[in-house]
Each structure stands twice: as C-alpha cells, then as structure tokens.
C-alpha cells in the first residue's frame, strides 16, 4: 500500500505537485490563523482572571466604572436570546425546508431556494434597523412591554437571521434521504405526511440537528442587529418578564465598549475575557455539530 502511494507521488507531474503544495499551505495557514486568534485572546483575556477576584468576574453586576465586572448577566443574556431565537427559528426553518423539499411544486422550489439565499445576504444592520422601527413598536404596544427594545425583539431578529442557515442545512439533510425510504413508507400505505414525519425526518435527524447547531452558532455570534434592538441594559435576565425587558449580550458589550477602554486596562482585559468565553462557546457548538456529522459519515453517509 504505502509503497504504491510513494510511486504515485513520484510520478506526479510538476504543476500538480505545486498546486497541492499551495493548497496545503493555505489550508494549514487557515488553521494557524485560528490558533493565533485564540492565543491573542488568551494573552489579552487571561490577565483579567488575575487582576480581579473570580467572585467579581462571575458576579451579577456589570458596572465597569465602579470596578464591577460581573459577566453573568451578559453570558445569560446571550444564552437566553439565542435559545429563544432557536425556539422560534428551528421549527419554522425545518417546516420551511420540508415545504421546499417535499411539498412545493418544482416551480415554487425554483423561486423559494434563491429567495432563502437572498435572505442570508441581508446585512445585519439593515435587519437591526428594521427591528428598531418596525418590530420594537409592535412588541411595545402589542405585548405591553415598557420598551420595545427587549430580549424578545432581539430573539425575533436573530431568529430571522438564523433561518436561512437552518433552512438550507435542513434541506440538504432531507435531500440526502434516499428515495427508497420514501417509497417504502408509501408502499406500506402511509400517507405523504406520515412518510415525511415518520420516515424522512427521522432519517435526516442528524443533519437537522446540525442545522440547529449551525443556526445557534450564527445567532450567538451576531452583534450589530442585537445591539440595535435589545436595549443593552446589563441586568440579569431572570424572572418571568425577562423576555419583555432589555438585555445585553456579550457581543454587544464588546462592540460597544472596546472602542472606549484604555488598552491594557483591567476593563480591556475583561472584554477580552468575554471574547474568550464567546470563542469557547462557539467552538463547543461547532465541535458538537462536527461530531454529529462525523457520526453520520461513520454510519454510511446518507444520514
């Protein structure tokens, strides 16, 4: 085996070898870049853990001017808004994918698919603006919140932003379900619906799970739109009314405050520590979705 491979390499012509080398360098440097970013975050963020007590850092108050650096409200803010966004976007996205893939006639599919892609291309500042002037008043008046800039408003905008990802990944997953499974379901006397619900969706479950996680990664890292519509009050998002109160996410905090802090100050280090937390969170989500994909491959591709 090994020997024949080596001969193959030796036989390879010059340009092909060069192309392979270039691709390898580019690939390795991408990975290297991610590693560099992580190291940068570490060197700038880790000092925060030495400069202030852990109790303060994990506290519930974020008032940097009073030396209070409690990151908990920010972390919970990000998590809550992401979870709510997914509760809205995931069922909607999967249903849309089912509609596009399984139900819509061919001509409708031809229109819907590019439309979903256009959706993905809308800049987040535009969506944020839309959320501010259209959604916020609706939330304020319709749901009786004191202000329209709330967790819920942010979650709606985030849901909208995560939809294209969820739809297209879920659609690919449905697409990969072999026709023979559908045939088997139909031939058993199941209706189209029963076949979709009991055969096709379960067969595509790992791909659909991946859609959820990629959508989540998309939502948790979003900054601009969130900053525009959530009111940015760093309060603990607990209690039943948390959805209809302002909230502040980790991303919004970094974006809003990074420009104003003195480089090397404690505040500066804490902002990097927050970025570090965010990095780890997104990395964990990505890893989880990659492992789902990996398991899927192991089990023979198509699921």
């Amino acid at each position: 085996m090994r020997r024949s491979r080596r001969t193959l390499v030796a036989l390879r012509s010059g340009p092909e070898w060069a192309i392979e080398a270039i691709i390898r360098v580019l690939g390795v440097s991408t990975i290297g870049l991610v590693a560099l970013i992580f190291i940068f975050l570490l060197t700038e963020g880790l000092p925060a853990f030495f400069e202030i007590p852990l109790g303060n850092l994990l506290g519930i108050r974020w008032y940097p001017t009073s030396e209070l650096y409690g990151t908990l409200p920010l972390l919970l803010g990000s998590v809550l808004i992401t979870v709510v966004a997914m509760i809205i976007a995931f069922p909607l996205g999967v249903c849309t994918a089912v509609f596009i893939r399984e139900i819509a006639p061919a001509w409708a599919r031809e229109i819907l698919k590019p439309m979903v892609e256009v959706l993905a291309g809308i800049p987040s500042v535009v969506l944020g603006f839309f959320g501010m002037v259209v959604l916020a008043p609706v939330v304020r008046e319709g749901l009786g919140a004191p202000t329209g800039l709330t967790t819920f408003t942010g979650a709606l905008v985030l849901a909208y932003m995560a939809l294209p990802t969820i739809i297209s990944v879920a659609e690919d997953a449905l697409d990969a379900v072999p026709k023979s499974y559908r045939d088997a379901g139909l031939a058993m006397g199941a209706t189209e619906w029963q076949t979709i619900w009991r055969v096709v969706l379960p067969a595509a479950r790992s791909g659909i799970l991946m859609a959820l996680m990629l959508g989540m990664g998309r939502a948790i890292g979003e900054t601009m739109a969130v900053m525009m519509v959530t009111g940015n009050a760093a309060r603990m998002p607990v209690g039943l009314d948390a959805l209809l109160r302002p909230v502040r996410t980790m991303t919004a905090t970094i974006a809003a405050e990074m420009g104003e802090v003195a480089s090397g100050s404690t505040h500066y280090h804490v902002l990097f520590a927050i970025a570090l937390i965010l990095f780890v969170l997104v990395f964990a989500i990505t890893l989880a979705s990659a492992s789902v994909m990996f398991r899927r491959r192991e089990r023979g591709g198509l699921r």
Partner: protein
Amino acid sequence: MIKIRAEHVDAYYGAKQVLADISLDIKERQITALIGPSGCGKSTFMRCLNRMNDSVRIFSLRGDVYLDGDPIYADTYDVVQLRQRVGMVFQRPNPFPQTVYDNVAFGPRVVARERGADLDSIVEESLRRVGLWQELRDKLTQDALSLSLGQQQRLCLARVLSTRPEVILMDEPASALDPIETLRIEDLMRELIELYTIVIVTHNMQQAARVSDWTAFFLTDDGLTGKLVEYGETGQIFTQPDDKRTIDYITGRFG
C-alpha cells in the same frame, strides 16, 4: 380465483408510452412471475398494481386494474387501504434507518394505529413468518442497517407482512443477494403462498422456473413500449412456448 385483473393497460411517462394494451389475470394464492429484458416495463406494470406510480408526476394510465373485482383506479378508491392490501418488496433492501422492531412495527403503528402488546405480537409473528425471529429476537433494538443484506430483505418482507396484506409484489427481490439468501427468499415465497398472492419480477430465468406457477413474458419491439408477448403456466412457457420470441429469450438468445 382471480385476485388482480389488468385490462388493456396503457402506461405513459409524459408522452412516452411504456406499456401497451396489457391484459393479465393474476390468480389468487399463486405466484406469478413477470419476465423480460430490462426496460420493457415490468416494474412499471407492477407499480400499477398498488398505484405506486401515483407519486410520479408525469405518469398516466389508461385501462383498468381490478382488485377482487373493484377498479383500483376509480376516483373514490382508497389508496392507503389498497397499499395495505397490496404490499411491496423492492429490488434493494430498504429498511428504514431505525431499529428492527420499529421497522416491523411501522405499518401497524402508523397505518393501522396498533399499540402495546398487540404491536409486540404482530412484530413477533411477522418476524417468525420470515424466519428472522430466532436470529433477531435479542436484537430487536439494533439498527436495521447493521443486518446483512439478506436479513434486511427478509426484514422488509416482515414489514410488509405486518399489515396482513393479501398480495405481495416483489420487484427483483433477490437481485442484490447472494445465492444462499436467494434460495431462502424463494423458499419463503413457496411458504407464503398458502396465505398470499405473490407477483415477482425477475431477471433470473431459473428463478422464475423454480418458484412461479404462472409466467408473463414482456418484450419491447421498439425499445420503448412494452407488450405482453405470452402468458401461461410456467411449465408450459418454459417447455413449449407458443411464441418464438419467448423461446429466444428463455434460451438466452437476447436480453
């Protein structure tokens, strides 16, 4: 007794006519084999018998198909019920990517809405019928795709049996299997014939001769439209066919 009667069936994919004037009676509790070269419309004809072609948008059909005397292409005919009565086994084993139990329980659960202990006994009975119970009784929660191909195909057969059909359509059910598994399927067919009417498409002449009571020979003379050349008792078709083309095909001169 005639179980299924096809009368002057023409079938089209779009403008392409793939079956012309097929009239064929399928006898109850007998095995009918459909033979003929590839592309002559055997699968298409078979899929007319449980209306599986309904989901092909460009498909259309003229003529009539009767099950126990009722026209199955009538507007008011219940397709779901038809497919419970006329089950189908496909060329490639296609168990769902679920557990062995869930595969067999699918029909009763989803289509007939059975539950609990009833479900367990249906699963056991269906697996027993195809000789899988001994092999799989301790592996009911195993992923069906981890079984051997032959086991998968018998599982698919058990899945069909679970809704207690009257007719079983088998489209080249053994073409993906090794000789031993093939013989097992054939033995099973001979056992099942006590209760069921079976229609099988096969490429394998020996198989048709071994297993079937009746043989229908399909052929296309223009490479497009399949016609029924000859239909009769298997012994007669294989020993003294009326049509010269049948002799040529059976003796392997073309196809």
